[in-house]
């Protein structure tokens, strides 16, 4: 009977120690993105997501004295629109994105840390229409950024983040229409929030 009890206590102690090292963060911000699609029908047309309010949740664990590995979830929602050369702009509805990123971060200098990661980005249109007629799409993504943290309480830091990522965009509908290759989309996000973790 003592062996299982010892194992349980050891695991509990390990979990407590691990939990003490886990770093959590929650931030709010905005994301800006380049065009999703460029087309040419008489005039040039591009489809672009509007500036998107973004919620970012992150968790990270130390993997070396200076480095951490982390998982980050970002949810953004905004409208998207087509802009035709000559001035016609058409609102196309609401577009949400969900991003999950696995990354590393490390120190730069006082309060600053770099981060880099790869992940998946899911486009979730409110309506299956237009370029999303056959539904949303999931794309591979790579990104990097800079975080700034400043202690404001014993365990809490104010955290500001500047993030850049890119992916290549296309949809089943665009492919069915004969669009070839895919569109390089670059996104820049800024966010501010709180982080809790060990120092």
């Amino acid at each position, binding site marked *: 009977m003592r062996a299982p009890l010892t194992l349980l206590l050891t695991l509990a102690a390990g979990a407590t120690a691990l939990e003490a090292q886990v770093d959590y963060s929650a931030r709010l911000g905005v994301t800006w993105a380049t065009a999703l*699609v460029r087309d040419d029908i008489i005039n040039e047309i591009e489809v672009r997501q509007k500036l998107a309010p973004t919620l970012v949740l992150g968790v990270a664990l130390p993997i070396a004295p200076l480095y951490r590995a982390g998982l980050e979830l970002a949810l953004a929602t905004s409208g998207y629109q087509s802009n035709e050369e000559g001035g016609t702009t058409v609102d196309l509805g609401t577009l949400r994105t969900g991003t999950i990123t696995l990354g590393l971060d490390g120190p730069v200098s006082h309060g600053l840390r770099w981060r880099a990661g790869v992940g998946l980005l899911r486009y979730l249109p409110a309506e299956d*229409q237009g370029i999303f007629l056959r539904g949303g799409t999931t794309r591979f993504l790579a990104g990097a950024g800079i975080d700034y943290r400043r202690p404001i309480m014993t365990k809490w830091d104010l955290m500001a983040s500047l993030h850049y990522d890119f992916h290549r965009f296309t949809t089943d509908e665009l492919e069915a229409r*004969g*669009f070839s290759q895919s569109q390089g*989309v670059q996104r820049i996000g800024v966010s501010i929030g709180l982080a809790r973790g060990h120092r």
Partner: protein
Amino acid sequence: MNPRRWLPLLCLAGGSVLLSCADIAAPSRSGAYEWRRIVATASGPDTLSFHWPQARLPVRFWAEDTLNLPVHVQQAIDQWQAAFLYGEFRGELVADSSIADVIVASGIAPKGGLSVTRLESLMAPECQGATDIELDASGHQILPPIRVYVDPRFDPAAPGVDACMALTTTHEVGHSLGIFAHSPNAEDIMFADPVVAELSPRDRATAELASHTEPTLTAAPR
């Protein structure tokens, strides 16, 4: 500051710039057919083209409640909406014909105006359709409503009639969107005697070109 700490970040940034340069390649729309109507005038041929402007969307359709027309019209609206990638056309069924931009009724077209099409189907002989577009005295403003007529030639319950009514309604709704001419290809919904139920890539490409070409006709307020 240790430069080696920046190395992963710099590698990723460099890679991303390289990978994100190329643009998506738009398809060729060379298969599109002529959609404009060329009419003879005293001073020579005149080219009439039209599409509903964004300010008039959604285009309001009223369908007579007979011969399954409301269903056929809704299916036609859905098909044409799906033809566009950038919100160029939206349509909706309305209950009140007095506010409709397009009225779809059963029967044979009773009057002239600019009859864009007077479908006399040979390959699909079960029904016929027509679209009447009335212009003002200047000849460059459409006076809504555009009137679409779809008529069964036989007993509506006869085999093939309902399917013919459906595809003919889609064809006529295509005229009401601004495709004023017929496709020379029998595989297109806008062929003069349509036999297909769905829009072809040529139909879609033509609709896209029509909706992005500066129109010579405008629509009067309804």
